[in-house]
């Protein structure tokens, strides 16, 4: 076998397939991405800082990172429950539910955006009763702790305000945690739980001390994937966010705004900041997956 696996293979097509792969990858992905970095390097440092750290841009980072983090957190919690229910229990319609989890991957983001807006607007199915409750709750919080400016943080409406951003980002990040947890849960050995139980642990102890630590690497990976996806999301958010500058404007939208004003350098500089953060996240996800694999082999 070792002679077969040496660099000279009997199988044909190595040069052709590798050459084509590299050329296609280079032309479609690498050169255009490089263009963003080279364009930015043409800027002076002062221009770059003005472009990526003006108050309006900083406000958009806060919203994009904050809402993505919160959405990924909520997805981790409910994703854990959904994955657990789908792997461990049987109930009527389980296969339909399982297939439906991938809907955010399959449904175009613009469609998701207008559908969510229709539901959560103040005349929609959910927004109709939820918005008055939300407005009253935020107003009460604001009266109780005026120094915390809850109105600015939470927004007074659901659609066309900050909660809308969070709802859209939760929708598009939903499958990641479920899909990374499912295979790990399926492979979890029942012997572990039996051993834990026979050693005198109750069900709660078994879940928190034995099962949860096994799931943790996959859970963090799913969280990071949902977070990374939410950070770059555009289509579903713009319809529901209201897009008020300094308040409910996400960073990808700001890139488009700058492009429409023919501020190519400004748009590219923000894009580079976003690219660097998503590459860091990608690296983190790869490391997490390695850790998770090693964790499971032991």
């Amino acid at each position, binding site marked *: 076998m070792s002679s077969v696996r040496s660099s000279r293979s009997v199988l044909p097509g190595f040069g052709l397939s590798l050459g084509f792969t590299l050329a296609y990858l280079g032309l479609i992905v690498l050169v255009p991405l490089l263009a963003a970095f080279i364009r930015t390097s043409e800027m002076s440092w002062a221009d770059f800082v003005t472009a990526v750290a003006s108050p309006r841009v900083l406000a958009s980072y806060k919203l994009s990172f904050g809402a993505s983090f919160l959405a990924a957190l909520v997805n981790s919690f409910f994703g854990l429950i*959904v994955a657990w229910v789908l792997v461990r229990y049987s109930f009527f319609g389980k296969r339909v539910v399982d297939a439906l989890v991938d809907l955010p991957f*399959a449904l175009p983001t613009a*469609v998701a955006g207008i559908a969510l807006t229709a539901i959560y607007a103040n005349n929609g199915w959910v927004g109709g009763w939820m918005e008055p409750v939300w407005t009253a709750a935020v107003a009460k919080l604001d009266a109780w702790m005026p120094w915390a400016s809850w109105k600015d943080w939470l927004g007074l409406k659901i659609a066309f305000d900050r909660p809308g951003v969070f709802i859209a980002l939760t929708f598009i990040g939903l499958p990641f945690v479920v899909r990374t947890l499912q295979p790990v849960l399926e492979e979890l050995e029942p012997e572990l739980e039996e051993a834990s139980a026979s050693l005198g642990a109750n069900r709660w102890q078994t879940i928190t001390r034995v099962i949860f630590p096994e799931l943790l690497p996959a859970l963090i990976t799913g969280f990071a994937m949902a977070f990374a996806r939410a950070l770059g999301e555009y289509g579903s958010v713009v319809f529901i966010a209201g897009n008020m500058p300094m308040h409910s404007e996400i960073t990808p939208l700001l*890139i488009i705004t700058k492009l429409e004003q023919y501020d190519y350098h400004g748009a590219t500089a923000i894009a580079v900041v976003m690219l660097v953060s998503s590459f860091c996240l990608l690296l983190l996800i790869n490391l997490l997956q390695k850790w998770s694999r090693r964790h499971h082999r032991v």
Partner: protein
Amino acid sequence: MATTVTHLKAQLGAAAPASRATQDAPWVRWSLIGVALVFLGFFLVLPLAAVFTEALRKGIALYFQSFTDADTLAAVRLTFLTAAIAVPANVVFGVAAAWCITKFNFKGKSLLITLIDLPFAVSPVISGLIYVLVFGLQGWLGPYLDAGTHPWLGDWLNQQDIKVIFAVPGIVLATIFVTFPFVARELIPLMQAQGTDEEYAAITLGASGWQTFRRVTLPNIKWGLFYGVILCNARAMGEFGAVSVVSGHIRGETNTMPLQVEILYNEYNFVAAFAVSSLLAMLAMVTLVLKSLIEWRYAQSRATHD
């Protein structure tokens, strides 16, 4: 009879603690199922239902009338055209990449795999922006596409009527970028698991490279390939952000279906916007059904192989 039943029940009762320790109590089970279904209901079922309800709000006649609009029909055609170019392009790439990665050993393989996944980490908006930077009038190739600065090349390109940004080629390129990894990332793990023994056998028995691929490799990977194709197609037809940046939104010319949805929606033509959306939602549901069927088939074939 009754005594036997109680006797059995007593025996079962004695055995119960062991299973109770590894199983959740019914109330836990049902409340978790309830929480999961309510969450998915709010975030998945309601949006899907809303698309069709809003589309049919003013009646079925108005729903179908939305599809007689010339601009909408042009958007449908452009969406199909874009997918018809982007999907085959990424299939050829995916097969080539998976072939060289899984059948041969070379340095930098894991780097190559990471780079193939790169477009998934890039925001759709940025995916469009980078093509504007390369092909736009202020971009690298822009001056060459502009007749003024380079008359010879520009004239030739103008004669050919080639425009990339704010035109169909830009839309196709941006779509290829965002759907780039789909086929390759399905095929690589699949072909890695299958190994190279069958191909070696075919070559040893005198098959040519093309015969080996067509008769041995392709039947083995066809379901994985199909899986990648339907996911790639769903994204290609539904992409919004990247296409929005490069399209220029010229009605009837450079609008794909998702962009047409946006335009109709912003004009408060909600019925038409949701009618076009309902087509895309049906595409999404067909995608999910096909995907589940392939997964089910794959699980079955694996069960029979084991």
